[in-house]
């Protein structure tokens, strides 16, 4: 039984290595078009969540949309460089608690599910965004 599982895990790793071609995450989510669709899904998710929508009352949605598209493009190694407002400046004074940060992560996951982005690609995107948490919460 143990052996079966270890073999399985090992197989998953091998398959993973074999399938991790040289394409960037940006290419794996279908480039510019994919990023735009993902961000639009994400904005729709936020629009349907009262708790989170409250943080966006003063937000210019078009500005947020463009900023997040460029940010995601840059984070996924696309041909963009995010030069927008810095994370700390954006979130200072919002006092975002842990639970609301996680709720936003869940909305992004919902959006990625909606765009049928594979689990493994989702996880890699999240792992690149996760280190930004200290620049967002409780400030």
């Amino acid at each position: 039984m143990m052996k079966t599982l270890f073999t399985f895990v090992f197989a998953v790793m091998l398959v993973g290595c074999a399938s991790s071609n040289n394409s960037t995450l940006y290419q794996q989510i279908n480039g510019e078009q994919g990023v735009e669709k993902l961000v639009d899904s994400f904005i729709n998710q936020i629009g349907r969540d009262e708790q989170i929508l409250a943080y966006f009352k003063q937000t210019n949605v078009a500005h947020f949309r463009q900023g997040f598209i460029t940010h995601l493009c840059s984070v996924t190694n696309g041909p963009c460089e995010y030069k927008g407002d810095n994370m700390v400046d954006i979130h200072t004074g919002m006092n975002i608690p842990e639970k609301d940060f996680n709720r936003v992560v869940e909305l992004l996951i919902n959006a990625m599910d909606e765009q049928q982005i594979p689990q493994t690609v989702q996880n890699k995107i999240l792992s690149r965004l996760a280190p930004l948490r200290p620049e967002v919460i409780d400030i």
Partner: protein
Amino acid sequence: MKRLNWLFCLACLGFASSGLAASGKLLATPGVSQVEGSAGGGIVPWAQLAGYASDDEIAINGFCSRADVSDYRLDVCGAQLNIYDRVEFSYAEQRFEVPALNTDIEQSITGAKVRLYGDIVYSKWPQLSLGVQHKSLDDGSIANLLGAKDTSGTDVYLAASKLHLGALAGYNWFWNTTFRYSDANQLGLLGFGGPDSDKELLFEASTAVFLTHQIAVGVEYREKSNNLGLGEQDWQDVFVAWFPNKYVSVTAAWLDLGSIAGAKDQTGWYLSVTGYW
């Protein structure tokens, strides 16, 4: 009667906290409930605190588990309270059935765990927690007969856990290691200590891979002491845990518990359900 008492307490707590249902953690990150009542896997307590409470929430959970191996059966039910994801209190009652002797051994376990550092997802270093489990046998006659020193005892453990996002070919990889200072024989069901043995440091570990948002498969290992000279062996299991939502989790496992009180090759199934509020 005892069981009714704590069910009643749980209900009180439930009412007291109604409207506070916690959901501030990401799905599956609190883990499940281990056999001594703490948040963990099946046999190992983990560094996570039970339930979905984040730093400004309170969570209450209840669980029941059954382990059915060759010659014995263990039933456990318990509850946990998580306050601000800083402190976890737990209570569990175990009933260990020994059909060959036509007898049951019952034990209650009161636990507490404090999160010392970190968050299993976000912090750079693993989440670190310190916990205690105070165990007390209802009737120590079998433990005494086998040569155990005491019929109650306290385990202290230090646990470290981390979830690495996308680390294993894109899949989320979880691991936990626990060091436990204990003299419990078979969880304490056969008493504490023995003829010439004292508390010792024991190593436990778990690891799992998330195949989807909702399903994790993993393995666990728990080192055991052999205080009674009955050939007590280390425990292992292979598990699959399912988190369909933030209100319930279901865990199934295949157990290999080695020799228990002289009966060799105790293998069998484990099933556990935890409800989260």
